[in-house]
């Protein structure tokens, strides 16, 4: 099946710093989502971004489908940004069910 890799696996930042999270996938897809799992376990939709660039406040995402990667940018990080960020992909040759990456664990220190 399709392989999804995320980097870095862990990231520790000081409040106010910027960061870039990366998602690589092994085959063409037509669906891609970024999620934030907060410390209570809730999975929150950040972006639905099969291609192109989107921005929402301090967060933005870019997907280059032809090169099989997506980037999530977090600017001016806050302690509430802490948690695990998951990338999920679907479509292409592997059906419409999302395949999740292993996640990036982000800790933002005050």
């Amino acid at each position, binding site marked *: 099946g399709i392989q999804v890799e995320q980097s870095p696996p862990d990231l520790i930042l000081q409040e106010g710093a910027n960061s870039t999270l990366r998602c690589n996938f092994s085959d063409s897809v037509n*669906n891609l*989502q970024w999620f934030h799992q907060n410390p209570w*376990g809730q*999975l929150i*939709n950040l972006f639905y971004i099969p291609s192109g660039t989107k921005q929402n406040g301090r967060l933005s995402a870019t997907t280059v489908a032809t090169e099989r990667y997506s980037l999530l940018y977090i600017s001016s990080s806050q302690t509430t940004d802490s948690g695990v960020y998951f990338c999920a992909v679907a479509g292409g040759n592997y059906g*419409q069910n*999302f395949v999740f*990456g*292993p996640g990036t664990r982000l800790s933002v220190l005050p």
Partner: protein
Amino acid sequence: SQTIHQWPATLVQPVGSPLSLECTVEGTSNPNLYWYRQAAGRGLQLLFYSVGIGQISSEVPQNLSASRPQDRQFILSSKKLLLSDSGFYLCAWRETRSGPYPLSEQYFGPGTRLTVT
């Protein structure tokens, strides 16, 4: 607007006991429904999905089963729990639509934290 509910929020069950977790979605019709499990500190594993009433597809063979008795209700069950069934169980839904992308983005419920003792 659409909302998704799961209950119970937490559950502690002894090994060998039965299990029933429920998920309901409001504000949409004929959604695709999904059950995921997340072990502690790990990623999400798709267990079951359903494209309609009575239609269940299993992704991973195990002692769990799923049922969809109504359009917006999805139930995860087990006759006898194992220690390895402990984890965080998440229900999710996606809306079907026409066009080049037949399924919308996916939305998750709040989850059920199951501890098997």
